[in-house]
């Protein structure tokens, strides 16, 4: 397990060097902000329950949903508050991160 994580990180690091900040892949801030979602949406966006998974969502779809939560056009329980707490640039960062993590 330890070895496979180290290997994954090595590969992620190598990929990150190529695509880095542009894809949100190797950006530590994108990685952290995306991890904020985990306690409801599951580790790495893989939900174990009724709350939808975020892993592998198309980036544009993710950003559009966040905007819809923010302006209230998509009804929500907790998501309007969360959408109001992040900037549009951060929606983009998170969207790219989840799109890259299937």
């Amino acid at each position, binding site marked *: 397990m330890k070895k496979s994580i180290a290997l994954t990180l090595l590969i992620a690091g190598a990929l990150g060097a190529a695509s880095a900040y542009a894809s949100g892949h190797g950006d530590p801030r994108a990685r952290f902000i995306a991890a*904020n979602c985990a306690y409801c949406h599951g*580790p790495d966006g893989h939900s174990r329950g009724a709350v939808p998974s975020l892993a592998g969502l198309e980036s544009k779809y993710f950003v559009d949903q966040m905007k819809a939560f923010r302006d209230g056009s998509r009804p929500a329980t907790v998501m309007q508050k969360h959408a109001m707490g992040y900037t549009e640039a951060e929606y983009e960062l998170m969207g790219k991160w989840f799109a890259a993590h299937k």
Partner: protein
Amino acid sequence: MTIDRREFLKVSAGAAGAVTLSGLAGCASTSIASAKPKVVVVGAGFGGATFARYIKLWAPQAEVTVIEPNPVFTSCPFSNTVLAGINKMEDISMPYDNIKKVVDNFVPDTVTAIDNAKQTVTTAGGKTFAYDRLVLAGGIELLYDAVQGYDAETRKTIKHAWKASADQTGVLRKQLEAMPDGGTFVMSVPKSPYRCPPGPYERACMVASYFKQAKPRSKVIVLDGNPDVASKKGLFVAAWKKHFGYGTADSMIDYRPNNMPRSVNAKTMMVGTEFDDVKGDVINVVPPMRAAKVTGMAGVRTGNDGTWCPVDYLTFESTVVPNVHILGDSALTNFPKSGSVANNTGKMCAYAMSEIFAGRKPDPSPVVTNTCYSATGMGTAFHVATVFRWDPEKKALVPPKGANGVSKEESELEMAYMESWAMNVWADTLGLPDSYKFTAKG
């Protein structure tokens, strides 16, 4: 922290004796890309376990030791469902298997001493661990002495159930089961700030829901040390009215603000407040609390008259002792003491520390969130949700406009989300695999 002369001499002598060791370690912790910074984590609850897992993901070169006395993780969130008879202790208890796999050293032991000059931690088992960074995530210490009569003998009968365990939550459930119909359950709410602000009011709902179904002539008396319901007031009062007759002569819940328990007696089964003595068939007094004992050992429990630990919001490092970070309920912040906050700030601290280990500065404008659900015991739940962002003027993490609020009303949908939250936060905190079978129900 105050150090008297003798202590100071002892500390200096120790530091001088260990000058090569700690000198090198100290150097390693601040230099760019140090080979293997030593991180010691005390406590593997929501804060500590999450931190340990994420620091190994984001700074795999760190050598991480986790010290935790409990053989399994037991969740305080959802433990009120055990009191209602919805779940059993095993449904809210989960293994540390994955944490043990990902960290370098998992030590099933209790910390007995911390030397913040030598940067070492010693355990009851007699082991000593050196650290470059220490993370204290020990939760809370209960102050039994603040309630007269709450001695070791009394504690055999009267339970707080504010740290979930078979001996606390499990025994309290058995007491409720054994209570005859028509009996009285007396519970208390400590003064703010305390672990899990909505927890006591949820507990009142949960026990009342059990009584409604199994012992309908029974009552719940809530003795609150606060002047009013301290969390989600509108939602709890609405739930009490809707389900338990609150506000009528037949109310199952008798809520009494400004009623801090001052004494407790297990023989007479009485709780004394400033105003009167209240008799209960089952008594559940939650004493006042402060940051975990280990924070006192490290000299970081200096805020709010020595009860909680002030931290730098960008790193969760103590503002009084360098290289000591405080996570979860022990920290003195404007965040609620919730499982979500402990989980999220665990990641924030791992993020800040991984940046430091990489030779960079921690993110100057972090974001953390809280999403906290409470259940009514009647198949519904509701939430409070908040996003906290760095405000350079206030030098604090505060919610932007609109990024803080509660449910309009309780709902079955939010009960499903609460159940989902529990599984996801447990999975995220402990690194439980996709194949892990959860058994807890909402």
